[in-house]
């Protein structure tokens, strides 16, 4: 990854605020588009904020939306720092969710804590396997991970469609003859506990805890150090006697593990069953891609990814409210989202230059 994404010491507040200005600028362009559509931008902004933070339910929805982004993003932190690009979040979320669903359905009757644990574990392992395939292909068969993860996303979706309209379909759907492609509802014992009387579930705490673990893993363990070394320079890693291939596999495997865990949490915490509308999007909401964006905004730092996931969760949640209140086409929100990504990532250079100048100044000051 480019050097600019390494975590830096906290520096000038102004420099840190650059991304915020970029978001504002993107919103300004969005406001112009709204005006062109004949929609009052202030009303739209109000609806967006209200939808994301308006009351306890809205905040809960925002957090719930952020949870899969965080899980995927944490995996991205590991894999990108290990020098491998994982575009396979969508597929990994799906296989994780499917495995957790299968295990939870099979384990009806087990005590809740045990059922939840084994289901989450199954999801994590399935995700790890899916990511691990891409890792193995890259390390030992010379197959670029961008290619394999894109292809594996499609394979996961078609596999999901097969399972949900076939072996895993809720028997009642067959009996009724309407064949809705979904599983039976999971046993209630497998539901993740809700934290407050909203949709907010235990997965939020789990995600934050995992973020801390990933931070410790990357910066406080030898394996984490090696992954980062491989990411910074494969040559240097080889020279240091690190088995580069093994750590590339590990990077993708762990990315898949975290995304798979995210998929499992989404099933146990939100949907309580697995379903398909033919694509992965219906289930993931695009978290496999948005998680990449969240991780990069978080500067590929596990702890930085927490607030950035939250912000994206807020944006996505608020945007839906905006569509409802203002009857703004949802497509505008998608376009605006793209603009925000472009503007923020484009503004990075200004922040970086400013920081560099500050560092230079302080170095000169010392000298």
């Amino acid at each position, binding site marked *: 990854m480019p050097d600019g994404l390494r975590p830096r010491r906290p520096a000038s507040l102004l420099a840190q605020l650059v991304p915020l200005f970029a978001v504002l600028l993107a919103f300004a362009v969005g406001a112009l588009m709204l005006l062109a559509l004949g929609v009052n931008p202030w009303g739209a902004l109000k609806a967006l904020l209200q*939808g994301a933070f308006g*009351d*306890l*339910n809205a905040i809960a*929805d925002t957090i*719930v*939306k952020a949870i899969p982004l965080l899980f995927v993003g944490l995996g991205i932190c590991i894999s990108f720092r290990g020098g491998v690009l994982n575009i396979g979040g969508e597929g990994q979320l799906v296989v994780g969710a499917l495995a957790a669903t299968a295990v939870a359905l099979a384990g009806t009757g087990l005590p809740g804590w045990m059922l939840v644990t084994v289901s989450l574990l199954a999801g994590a392992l399935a995700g790890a396997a899916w990511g691990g395939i891409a890792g193995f292909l890259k390390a030992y068969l010379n197959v670029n991970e961008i290619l394999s993860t894109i292809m594996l996303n499609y394979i996961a*979706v*078609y596999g999901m*469609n097969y399972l*949900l*309209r076939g072996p895993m379909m809720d028997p*009642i759907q067959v009996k*009724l*003859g*309407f*064949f*809705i*492609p*979904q599983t039976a*509802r999971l046993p209630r014992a497998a539901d993740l506990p809700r934290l407050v*009387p*909203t949709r907010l579930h235990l997965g939020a705490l789990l995600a934050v805890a995992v973020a801390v673990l990933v931070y410790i893993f990357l910066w406080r363990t030898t394996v984490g150090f090696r992954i980062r070394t491989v990411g910074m320079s494969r040559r240097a890693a080889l020279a240091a006697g690190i088995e580069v291939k093994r750590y590339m596999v590990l990077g993708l495997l762990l990315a898949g593990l975290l995304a798979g865990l995210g998929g499992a949490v989404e099933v146990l915490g*939100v*949907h*309580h*069953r697995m*379903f*398909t*509308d*033919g*694509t992965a*999007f*219906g*289930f993931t*909401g*695009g978290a496999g891609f948005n998680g990449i964006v969240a991780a990069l905004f978080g500067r590929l730092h596990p702890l930085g990814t927490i607030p950035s996931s939250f912000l994206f969760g807020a944006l*996505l*949640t608020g945007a*839906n*409210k905006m*569509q*409802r209140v203002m*009857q703004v*086409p*949802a*497509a505008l929100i998608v376009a605006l989202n793209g603009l925000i990504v472009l503007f923020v990532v484009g503004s990075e250079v200004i922040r970086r230059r400013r920081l560099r100048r500050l560092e230079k100044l302080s170095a000169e000051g010392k000298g």
Partner: protein
Amino acid sequence: MMRKIGFVALVLVMVDLISLGAPFRVAVILPSTINDFAWSQSMYEALMAIQEEMGEENFQFVYSENMYVIADAAAAIRDYAAQGYDLIIAHGSQYGSSLVDIAPDFPKTSFVWGSTAQTFTELGIHNIFAYAPHAEEGGYVNGVIAALLTKTGIIGGIGPIKTGDAKRYAAGFEKGIKDTNPDVQVNYTFIGSYSDVALASEAARTFVNAGADVLTGTAQMTVGAISVAKEKGITWLGYDVDQSPLAPKTVAASIVVDWTVALKPIIAMIREGKYGGEILPLTFANGGLKLVLNDAALEGKLSPAEIIELKALVWETLRKIVSGEIIIEVE
């Protein structure tokens, strides 16, 4: 918190009922767009028709389109319920589980979803309706028409994924052909997507290559296939809405789903204080399914005498479906 909102919603609904002049307010969640020439458009047209009939002062509706992300759809449903809409239409079978979570919090708001026969009364929920278009009936009639129209004896179908209405329609279509002419060869392909226009188009071309001269299909990506049928001068049989405006000389027949047949009784029941628990089928018998024949396309394919013969057999088939002489099982 939720209870409080539920209470507010309740008050709003009561106010609506008390002040007789207040309009009936509907919110609808659509998985695609209101102009997709398929599933979502058929619902939009039904709501427009009801509004026209009842007048804008008595019937109002809002919609959220492109709600393919289930979690977002659930949030939208909850939000509409909290705003006190009288009826919330979750227009897609993927939304059912969300309703189970949401409906109990808003006992005086009515919800409807489909295609399904589940209203969840067994879970103690009494404010969910279900609508159930019998797509297999529509498929069967189109199958009869296809069997009468084909000259090559090869017919093709193109669907999204083999579930739900698409599966039922395909099963009916194949049975309609076999019952009319067992020698006709029919194959149905599923392209795994509701949006892949290119693959739908390629499937249509492959069918034409294999000798097919009549094609059918369901869901919005079939516009790609209709365009191929038009280019190759063969026949298309449509579903959901009247698709003949897309290709007036190509679309010989469309099965139109008329959702007003389900929605009007639902509105009446809500006004009488019944908020759910009923399954509303849409069939040829109750007018929920309608056959629209397009003479302009038929005239290009058949002689006047053959058209008369075709219509006679099709009306006879409809009569038998309505009377229950023809029963179509879907496995």
